[in-house]
């Protein structure tokens, strides 16, 4: 019992003095659900307009054909696949924070993980649209499902593109289930404070949760198993995405470091996106007592770690291109740095390699304004990283007469812009309908109310 006592007293090390009781968490978090401010409506309006641009652009492509995009030989993968990889990467840090840091018992994840997990689900929902857009004839998208064709020939399971279908659909299903299960106790808390129709709504989506010992017992065990399954899953998904490239023989793609390099880059971009989302959330919803400087500093350290891995991977790529002695491989990397798309490469290196090095300074890590600016640089840099890998490599393969250039069309840029609004649309809805901070899990880092403690003091 002595160890249990000290363990209970250690809780509270991470919480703000304003959050001392369990009921404080309910008060502060459920307040967010009750009043949509004017700022929220403005952002929601912008997001809706962007979603309109997204579907208008896609509709144009459906009506007039894939020719309205800039895709052609030799660059058959452009902005759509770049943006697909970008959004799948963004998703990764949500699972890292919700599952991997859960298994590692990192208590700072508690206040941020709900928002990060929501980001994961919506980012995969965004990413999942891009293969459908990219295939052009979207009404044949069901061909992605593994079933035998009219001549009873099955898909080729040796193809990384088929692996990708399995990886991304599994990732979406598992992260959505994990996200929803985690919210159930908090939906019950929302139900108990709501009235009328909202109460009925929360009662149904909380599945009638009551918080009994039987429910909590199986829930907490199931949560551990789901986290244990999600951990290898998140590492596998971006590895499989990287094999879409690495399994081919295109110079600049065909390397064995791609899987770890992509996974590190994914977590890097995802943590940056969490910071980009958490800074305004903290301010608008007055969650300063929950998302403290300590939380941001921990995320900044994660960013710094992954930034150095990514920078190391960039240098390894260049070194191996030179060391291989292969003219096409050397040519591909020379083209990256000094060819037609030199600017994309240098944006990538600046935003992902140099700017995050500022995070070595503690003052930068503890400044929320600085982190917000750096996180936006990283978001831009990581989009360009995928653009550099995909477009410059395809534009400069083996035969000089097969080299070519690619220029994104207005339709492609509309879909790229619209994808951010589509993501924002879902995220804004989330902040209004579901508790954006995990209420029950926040209580785990608050010292529990003890009768014995009162007598002792």
């Amino acid at each position, binding site marked *: 019992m002595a160890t249990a006592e000290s363990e209970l007293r250690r809780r509270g090390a991470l919480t703000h003095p304003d959050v001392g009781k369990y009921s404080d968490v309910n008060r502060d978090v459920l307040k967010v659900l009750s009043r949509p401010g004017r700022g929220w409506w403005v952002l929601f309006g912008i997001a809706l307009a962007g979603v309109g641009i997204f579907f208008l652009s896609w509709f144009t492509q459906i009506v007039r054909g894939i020719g309205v995009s800039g895709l052609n030989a030799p660059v058959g993968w452009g902005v759509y696949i770049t943006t697909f990889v970008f959004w799948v990467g963004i998703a990764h840090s949500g699972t890292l924070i919700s599952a991997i840091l859960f298994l590692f018992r990192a208590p700072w994840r508690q206040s941020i993980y709900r928002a990060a997990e929501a980001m994961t689900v919506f980012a995969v929902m965004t990413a999942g649209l891009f293969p459908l857009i990219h295939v052009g004839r979207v009404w044949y998208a069901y061909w992605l499902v593994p079933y035998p064709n009219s001549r009873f020939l099955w898909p080729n399971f040796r193809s990384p593109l088929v692996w990708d279908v399995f990886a991304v659909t599994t990732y979406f299903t*598992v992260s959505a289930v994990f996200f929803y299960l985690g919210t159930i106790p908090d939906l019950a808390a929302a139900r*108990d404070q709501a009235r009328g129709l909202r109460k009925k709504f929360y009662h149904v989506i909380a599945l009638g949760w009551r918080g009994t010992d*039987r429910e909590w*017992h199986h829930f907490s065990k199931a949560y551990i198993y*789901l986290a244990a399954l999600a951990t290898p*899953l998140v590492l*596998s998904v971006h590895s499989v995405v990287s094999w879409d490239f690495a399994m081919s023989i295109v110079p600049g793609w065909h390397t064995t470091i791609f899987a770890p390099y992509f996974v590190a880059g994914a977590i890097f971009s995802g943590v940056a996106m969490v910071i980009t989302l958490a800074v305004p959330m903290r301010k608008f919803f007055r969650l300063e007592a929950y998302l403290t400087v300590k939380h941001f500093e921990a995320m900044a350290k994660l960013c710094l770690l992954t930034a150095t891995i990514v920078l190391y991977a960039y240098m390894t790529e260049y070194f191996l291109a030179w060391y291989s002695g292969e003219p096409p491989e050397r040519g591909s990397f020379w083209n990256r740095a000094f060819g037609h798309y030199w600017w994309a490469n240098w944006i990538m290196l600046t935003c992902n390699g140099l700017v995050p090095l500022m995070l070595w300074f503690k003052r930068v890590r503890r400044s929320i304004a600085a982190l917000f600016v750096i996180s936006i640089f990283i978001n831009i840099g990581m989009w360009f990283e995928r653009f550099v890998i995909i477009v410059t490599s395809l534009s400069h393969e083996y035969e000089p007469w097969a080299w070519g250039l690619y220029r994104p069309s207005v339709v492609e840029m509309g879909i790229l812009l619209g994808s951010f609004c589509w993501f924002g649309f879902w995220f804004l809805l989330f902040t209004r309908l579901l508790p954006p901070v995990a209420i029950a899990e926040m209580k785990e880092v608050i010292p529990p109310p003890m009768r014995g403690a009162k007598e002792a003091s």
Partner: protein
Amino acid sequence: MSSGRQGFFALFEHLDSTIEACKALRAKGHKGFRAYAPLPEHHLLEEGLGLTHSPVRVFTLAGGLTGAATGFAFTSWTSVDWPLITGGKPILSIPAYVVIAFEMTILFGALATVIGLFINSRLPNFSPMVAYHPECSNGSFGIYVAAPAGQANEVRDLLKGFEPAELREDPEGFDV
């Protein structure tokens, strides 16, 4: 229909009194009572109620193994069903199929975990919220006991001994 039992809902402000009350109830041989908490408090679950293992793990394991077997069987069977050599690779390209089997292990394992959770915790539970107190999702703990008529006084005294913030009595006890 009267069950011949009386229901007690005791609301506690403190974690330690809830744990002690659960221990006392168990010591007296009461089985069908429920403790309520606003968080997954493992001290309450393990010390107070003696809960250790959950059968959910069997579901996870069974789901994962089924997924792995399905993934390998599906890819191998479809390859053998129409043997077509592509890229000079063997008809049964096991390393490539590991990726599919791996993803299906995770998918089936996760879905089976959810099914196991729902079966074991009896969710979704849309029966009327009788044995419940809305404070239990906020800042308080609770215990619900459906005591047989002969033991009602004993249970009432026991719960009162731990100084509940509120003790509600229902003329009828429910299975919870």
